[in-house]
């Protein structure tokens, strides 16, 4: 294992019951001092990964090190080195913001004036100076989230875990959180961020791993991953219900420079082309030739959405829909 990595996960496997293989050989590493994104739809295994790396859950197989300590062999050392913002948060609603931060500091062995000074510093940093003595129950969603992050930082951890930090926040509050996370990253903290927002991963993560069905299907910088997709993405919405993938593939076989053809269940045809603008007429002609009615056409530069489509073989939306149809699975807050 490489000493410069703040997080290393090797071949992690974990099943819940017989039906749900939450992690299926997940491997990735995070260099110290960087923001790393785990990107994937709900149910991809991101939260389970965080639970294993933060010593909350035991993997069935595999190994992991965080901040240089073995997650299974030295869980106490790992816990001293990390800060965690889980999806459920974990704030005491019946206590004030200040009391929440104080208790967190105390369980990490802090106390006295040093702790109070640290609390004031964090309340100020996260714009909660005036709200510090109010009960968390009275906080807005955005304030709670900021306090969640402040709480994870009280003891100055070396590695910070943010599990879906902006889920459920409205767009304005979300961009505030992004600024905050960006600031933390610039201070040299190692951050593992899980998200199912492509935009969020694109914006915050220096490197990211795309997770699907408990495995890493692609890893790299957001730009690098997008560059791997040469050319443009073409999306064609087909009007006819009778269209099937075989017919479409046959029709498009004669179009030059078109590859990675995927037809999804929303009757949208995805494909890639070296030069989108030039290829579209040929695509439309071919579809018309096969008596397939076209609803709409879009051509776009590659996005992380396309990256996901390319590596996971399905669209982000389809993956999330799949997850909803799966048998009941325990997630986040039981």
């Amino acid at each position, binding site marked *: 294992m490489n000493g410069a990595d703040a997080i290393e996960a090797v071949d992690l496997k974990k099943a819940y019951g017989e039906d749900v293989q939450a992690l299926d050989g997940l491997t990735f590493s995070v260099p110290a001092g960087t923001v790393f994104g785990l990107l994937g739809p709900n149910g991809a295994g991101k939260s389970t990964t965080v639970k294993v790396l933060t010593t909350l859950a035991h993997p069935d197989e595999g190994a992991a090190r965080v901040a240089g300590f073995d997650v299974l062999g030295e869980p106490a050392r790992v816990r001293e080195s990390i800060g*965690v913002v889980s999806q459920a948060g974990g704030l005491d609603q019946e206590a004030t913001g200040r009391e929440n931060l104080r208790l967190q500091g105390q369980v990490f062995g802090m106390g006295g004036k040093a702790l109070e000074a640290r609390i004031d510093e964090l309340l100020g940093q996260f714009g909660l100076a005036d709200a510090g003595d109010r*009960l968390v129950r009275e906080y807005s969603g955005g304030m709670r989230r900021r306090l969640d992050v402040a709480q994870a930082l009280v003891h100055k951890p070396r590695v910070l875990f943010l599990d879906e930090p902006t889920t459920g926040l409205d767009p304005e509050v979300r961009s505030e959180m992004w600024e905050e996370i960006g600031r933390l990253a610039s201070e040299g903290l190692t951050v593992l961020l899980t998200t199912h927002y492509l935009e969020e991963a694109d914006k915050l993560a220096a490197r990211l791993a795309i997770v699907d069905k408990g495995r890493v299907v692609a890893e790299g910088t957001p730009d690098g991953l997008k560059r791997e997709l040469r050319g443009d993405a073409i999306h064609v919405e087909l009007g006819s219900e009778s269209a099937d993938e075989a017919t479409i593939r046959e029709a498009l076989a004669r179009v030059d420079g078109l590859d990675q053809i995927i037809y999804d269940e929303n009757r949208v045809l995805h494909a890639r082309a070296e030069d989108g603008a030039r290829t579209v007429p040929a695509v439309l002609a071919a579809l018309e030739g096969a008596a397939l009615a076209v609803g709409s056409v879009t051509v776009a530069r590659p996005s992380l959405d396309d990256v996901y489509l390319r590596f996971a073989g399905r669209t982000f939306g389809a993956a999330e829909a799949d997850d909803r149809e799966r048998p009941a699975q325990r997630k986040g807050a039981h």
Partner: protein
Amino acid sequence: MKALRDTRHMTVRHLMALWRQPWWIAVSLVQPVIWLLLFGALFKSVTDIPGFGSTNYIQFLAPGVVVMTAFFGAGWTGMPVIDDINRGVIDRFLVSPVRRGSLISGRLASSALTTAIQSVIIVILALIVGASFSNSILGVVVLIAVSVLLGSAFGCLSIGLALLVRREETLIATVQFLLLPLSFVSVTFMQKDLMPDWMQTVSKFNPLNWAVEAGRSAVNPDPSWGAIAGKTGLLVAFLCLCGAFAVRAFRTYQRAV
């Protein structure tokens, strides 16, 4: 040392939460008063039954109400635990260096403290309305001690159950199911010799009954310290058993995460 410190921090957290609920404080102070005055008035004439022995029913009843109040309060210890589970508070502590045991012992300590305060208030009220306790301070201390032991044991059961079922409805139903039967199959309201034979037999296995017998004897003239020590020993053993159950339930919860 860290275990003690963590327990203290958790205890402060729970006491602050209670302190912020004036309604809860009011109810938990008024309820034992109602038990004492209501049952005291309702069953006043049982002292006329030949063989009852005591002539002052309030004095007979007061130690029972002290124990019963501790018991009723303890039954609900698990409710805020379910809230903590749902809000991710337990998981947040599990990824911190906090001593695992303090998550249970902090709740027991805060509930022991509230039990002691309630008990003192009931004792004072009983004195005002005409009871007189022998062995003064020592007797009352023993009474409070057995109440706290019983409360801690049922507190462990409630916490353990909360960690296993993780549903408030299930916990409420179970606690409701136990509270009154255990209270009535005991010498809380009635002299043992006047209870049906089968109830006398069952009450021998009722921890609440152990606590009432020990506590009542301690504040009566001529206490039988040997029997009190025996009952206290049983309560300690019961507490250990319940504590082991709570710890196991906690492990089960951790494994299921």
